[in-house]
């Protein structure tokens, strides 16, 4: 045997061995996409403007306090848009003081004076930073929630400026999961000033029909209406304690054995909670979740750092509430752009059919190759099988996901692999027909067919790379298998197939079986 051949054989066997090792055991190594495995695919948009609005509101509140403290009188501060507000009617003598306050405390804002009012707006960079961090925080929060809920191998990633892709394999209860992901989970404890009442008018009787500045009207969650005895409460606008003060939450049952959530507060929050409950024994304290009163128990005694939230929950409700409270509140609203839920049976059906079709396809191609090209056909089959092994090895190595369009990519790859062999064999036949010797025909067949194989594979690789770059999920899955297959093809159909000819055909070979 020629010396060069030995190295080529070793290289081929090494590639084969590495691919097999990397891809074994195949059920564990190849990740199936949601279309094959079943699960949930969501495209979400973070309404990052919400975060800006919230920030603006807080800034206005802070400014009002600052002005009060420094005896600056203004007729009002009005929000114009998220990230924009106007301070109206300040005393012209205090213009300098107003400026000082703005310079000192509102560094991320820019302002312009006109007469006795100031227009204040966020600097662009600061606004972008707030939006950006809202999206980042949302990714983190949603990841925490999904982890708590217990999904194996979830994918949660940013996609563009304010979109997220969430992929949850094996999830088969879309509504529940979507609720867990999208709930804002803003939990507040607010003192009840009046209520419950069936409507707003009744609540406002004592206040001349107008909501006082430091109060607000909050609706009762539909489930709790019958038990609380009304649908509206008048509450303190400012929450004494919020979800941020939570130290721990756990699912539990209340004294009537109904599912409930117990909580513990951090030291700081506990102090405030204790003061509030101590001063207001006999009054009601509303527990507000995402702007809906869950329950409003009467304060019977001073409460320290622990308590129970009753909300007339089901077990699932209570479990989910614990999940979202543990993970924390979302900084902004979330909107669903796309929601695909594939059941496990449809995915299994696709895999089954895909495998069957693939098998029939590969077998029929093999039969044809052997019938048409005889022993050389066997050579092509070996190359084809090696190509498939490399494909699965590479898929495992890159941790790529196999999707339905990905299977299509493999099939195109098989087609191109067979084509490369056909090109070579036809060329060998041509050269042989011209009366060239066996070894010469083989050698010329490979070298002359090479440019066509190389160009056609490379052209397709180029297009697949662009598809990978610009395409979305399924198209990406298609591009990745196609690229792997074509690269493997240049190795198997040209290098390995040639090697097999070299090994099986020597100077003494009398007949070319092609």
């Amino acid at each position: 045997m020629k010396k060069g051949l030995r190295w080529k054989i070793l290289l081929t066997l090494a590639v084969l061995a590495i691919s097999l090792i990397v891809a074994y055991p195949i059920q564990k190594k190849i990740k199936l996409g949601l279309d094959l495995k079943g699960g949930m695919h969501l495209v979400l948009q973070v309404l990052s403007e919400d975060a800006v609005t919230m920030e603006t509101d807080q800034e206005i509140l802070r400014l009002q306090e600052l002005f009060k403290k420094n005896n600056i009188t203004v007729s009002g501060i009005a929000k114009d848009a998220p990230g924009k507000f106007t301070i109206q009617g300040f005393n012209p003598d205090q213009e300098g003081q107003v400026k000082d306050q703005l310079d000192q405390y509102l560094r991320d804002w820019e302002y312009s004076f006109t007469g006795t009012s100031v227009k204040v707006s966020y600097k662009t960079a600061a606004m972008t930073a707030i939006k950006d961090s809202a999206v980042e925080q949302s990714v983190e929060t949603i990841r925490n929630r999904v982890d708590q809920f217990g999904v194996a191998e979830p994918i949660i990633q940013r996609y563009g400026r304010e979109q997220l892709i969430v992929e949850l394999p094996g999830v088969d209860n879309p509504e529940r999961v979507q609720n867990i992901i999208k709930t804002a989970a803003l939990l507040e404890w607010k003192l009840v000033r009046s209520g419950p009442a069936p409507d707003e008018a009744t609540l406002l009787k004592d206040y001349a029909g107008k909501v006082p500045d430091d109060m607000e009207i909050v609706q009762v969650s539909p489930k709790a209406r019958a038990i609380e005895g009304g649908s509206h409460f008048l509450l303190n606008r400012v929450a004494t304690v919020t979800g941020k003060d939570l130290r721990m939450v756990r699912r539990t049952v209340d004294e009537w054995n109904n599912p409930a959530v117990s909580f513990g507060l951090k030291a700081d929050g506990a102090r405030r909670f204790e003061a509030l409950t101590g001063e207001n024994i006999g009054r009601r304290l509303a527990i507000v979740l995402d702007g809906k009163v869950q329950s409003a128990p009467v304060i019977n005694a001073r409460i320290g750092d622990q308590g129970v939230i009753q909300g007339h929950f089901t077990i699932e409700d209570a479990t989910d509430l614990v999940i979202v409270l543990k993970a924390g509140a979302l900084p902004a609203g979330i909107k669903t752009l796309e929601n695909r839920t594939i059941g496990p049976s449809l995915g299994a059906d696709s895999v089954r059919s895909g495998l069957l079709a693939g098998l029939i396809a590969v077998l029929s191609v093999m039969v044809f190759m052997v019938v048409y090209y005889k022993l050389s056909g066997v050579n092509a089959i070996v190359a084809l099988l090696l190509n498939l092994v490399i494909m699965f090895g590479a898929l495992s190595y890159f941790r790529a996901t196999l999707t339905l369009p990905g299977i299509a990519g493999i099939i195109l790859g098989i087609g191109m692999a067979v084509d490369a062999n056909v090109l070579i064999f036809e060329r060998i036949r041509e050269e042989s027909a011209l009366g060239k010797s066996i070894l010469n025909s083989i050698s010329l067949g490979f070298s002359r067919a090479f440019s066509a194989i190389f160009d056609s594979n490379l052209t397709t690789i180029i297009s697949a790379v662009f598809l990978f770059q610009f395409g979305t999920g399924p198209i990406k899955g298609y591009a990745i298998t196609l690229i792997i297959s074509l690269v493997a093809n240049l190795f198997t159909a040209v290098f390995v197939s040639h090697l097999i000819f070299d090994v099986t055909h020597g100077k003494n070979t009398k007949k070319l079986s092609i």
Partner: protein
Amino acid sequence: MPLELFKTPHLKFMKFKYAALAFTLLIMLAGAVNIFFGKGLHLGVDFGGGTLIRVTFKDQIPVSSIRDSLKKVGLGNSTIQETGKGGHEFMIRTMQVIQTASAQEELEAHAKLADRVIAALKDNDGQAETQRGLVDLNGIDRAGLATLLDSAFPGEGAALAARVLETRNAEDLVLTGTSRIPGVLADWSDLQNNGVRPDVIKVLQDKTYLGKLAILSRETVGPQAGADLRKKATLAVIWSLIGMLIYIAVRFKLAYGVSAILTLTQDVLLSLAIFSFTNREINLPVIAALLTIVGYSINDTIVTFDRVRENLKIMRKDSLETVMNTSINQMLGRTVITTGTVFLTVLALFLFGGQVINDFAFVMLIGSIEGVYSTVFLSCPVVLFWQRLFPPKRGFRK
């Protein structure tokens, strides 16, 4: 002697260049007329937005009866497609266009529409059972079933639930080997015949009921996401075409690159025209199929160009047209064999590949045939026409 389908033939393909061009233009024109003024192009849920539900019934049900139940809730114009499995499995796409103030409301409206479709299909099925506190075993999720079984068999819930759900999705039963409709439990005996313990079945019979249908998948795509996917797919296709043009122009000549791209464009347009005529919907997998066709077609075209490139060096006295004709003839055997094997592969996919991949396989079937036509009759003539329009300064041959 080698087995040969073709002795290198001597057909005068180039003679038909005008006829081929006219034929192509005619079909494309007809397609364009049909797309813009006739049936139009049906965008699937991926690109057009809306809701697509796949559902399987435990009993056979005719399409007409499904349509009737949908008509009752004002959704009679939904597309209903039976998908194999002898009258059990259906794909329902709601066509109702909802005009709302914002995109978000529209998505939610679509999601609600899906609920309405499912409610209409269920048609009061299981109401009595639900009132008695039973849950639908054909609709319950894994976690729910595990909790339910855990109360009766502490610690075993998850494993038992897995076994039950595996039976629900099985194609045939372990003990009896009988085949069944996957995705839905039609009868309690299925559980027994798949080796679920009798005491477990007893508990299930007490606490659950077998609803008449199971939802296999539901997909809702909002208008914004649909537009986004459309844009991304278009960009991806255009960029990859440009990439190929540049490569071929560098490796061959600009004329060949242009011809390859024109050939491909005609492959895609022709497929779209056929889609329009056959009322099929365009989805992401269909785009993948179109790209695959483009891949094969470019492969065929390049192989032919490669031979032209080689023959131009050998046949120094002949005209470009003759060289092209010889090259096409020399490559004909290979083109037909390759396409034949591809056709075999795709036919397997089309026949056995299952519903989800069916549209994909259909495009591939027509595309693989069409690719041969475009390679043989179009790619070379276009180079010829281009070089006549823009004669290169050197190396030009008539």
